[in-house]
């Protein structure tokens, strides 16, 4: 059996590397951030703020519960999406 000459060996290695590179490139998927919808509740009296998960039917300005600090109404001031990983980290 003849041994491979350096040029042929180089070409084979190059071809294999090219195929592996092309395979990895096609498998590459862009990373996607997952978002969750949160709502910001603010007490009109003492300014207490709390962030909670959005519930269907909620809208900005809706009065939702009482302030744990002063007992006045908590109002939804904002509904927004945040990076899910940040919420998990904070909780």
């Amino acid at each position, binding site marked *: 059996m003849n041994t491979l000459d350096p*040029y042929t060996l180089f070409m084979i290695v190059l071809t294999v590397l090219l195929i592996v590179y092309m395979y990895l490139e096609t498998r590459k998927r862009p990373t996607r951030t997952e978002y969750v919808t949160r709502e910001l509740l603010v007490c009109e009296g003492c300014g207490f703020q709390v962030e909670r998960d*959005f519930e*269907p039917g909620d809208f*900005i300005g*809706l009065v939702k519960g009482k302030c744990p600090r002063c007992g006045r109404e908590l109002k939804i001031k904002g509904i927004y*999406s945040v990076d899910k990983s940040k919420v998990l980290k904070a909780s």
Partner: protein
Amino acid sequence: MNGDTISLITQIIWLIIFILLITGLNTKIQMRIWAMDIRNKLNLIKRIIDEDRVRVEKMISNLGYQTPSVLVGRVLDFFTIEPVSIEPIDIIKRLDHMIRTSEATVRRFVESSLPNTGKFERSLVETSIEVLAGLNLIYKVIRHYLLTGEKENNWVLLMQLELLMPTIMRYVETYHMALDPFMSGKPVGDSVGPLVVYNLLEKSKVVSKRVIEDTSVFETWLEDRRVFFVKAEGPGSNVGHPGAVIRKLVEELKGNVDLIVTIDAALKLEGEETGSIAEGVGAAIGDPGPEKIAIERAAAEYGIPLRALIVKMDYREALTVMKKEIFEASRRAVDYVLKLIKEETKPNATVIVAGIGNTIGVPM
């Protein structure tokens, strides 16, 4: 492997390349690869549409309509023909008429199918079906060009389509994601204008409120000025007719207005930060024309300074649930508008502030 074998293989490869080139077979192979890739993506779009259609039909049936597919099918293929543009006389009037007729017709379809449902839920149904119709239109147009390209062996058409597919897929994904806020009533990025006005209203002393053409008009006192706030009536999915209403308001006030400020979401350029605020001159409103021109005409006729404030975001952020950065920008925009009013007018002046955009999730 000796030198002769390598030389033979190289010659065969060159021969194959030569035959492919002179017969044009290489282009045909390339065309097949492009068509295959486009078809795969088209199938993905179809799956998304089918999934979204089931979601929308379920939403409608939960509201009490037993045959949602009839309503969805009717609105899905609904179209509006643009007015003749080679004759520009009255084009705005004609365009406005077409838009209003289109809106009223879709609204009537939904209303007749869901007579016992509230205005808020009906507006969500209307917009959800419109989002679905947008997706369906993209699907049909792509399919048309793919089949035309294949039928006519038009490789240029297929190549253009293949190159455009990543952008088109991003639009499809955006529309798919937009269904969530429009089905559940969450504010979207485009709601930033109405949100700023809502927050300004909370700081003002409201004198009166009325609703004209689905648009709320509030007469208030703020920072010793008489301020009229204009926004689409919320919290349903609604953009209202702010241009027509501002024009009416200016005429009612006989042109005695010292400043008009419009606040809207604007598409950012790549590299710009989401939620950054910029001010300028003009009417910040992205309608097809009638609303914008109404504001411009009213301001120009009476010489009223027309100022604009924009909150920057990309296309996806404008149509999907409002991001926290945009919400925080809305708070900064409130202070910006107050600063603008104080700088541009004197106490007792009359000012019109309009929050432009879809007011979904934002009341009043």
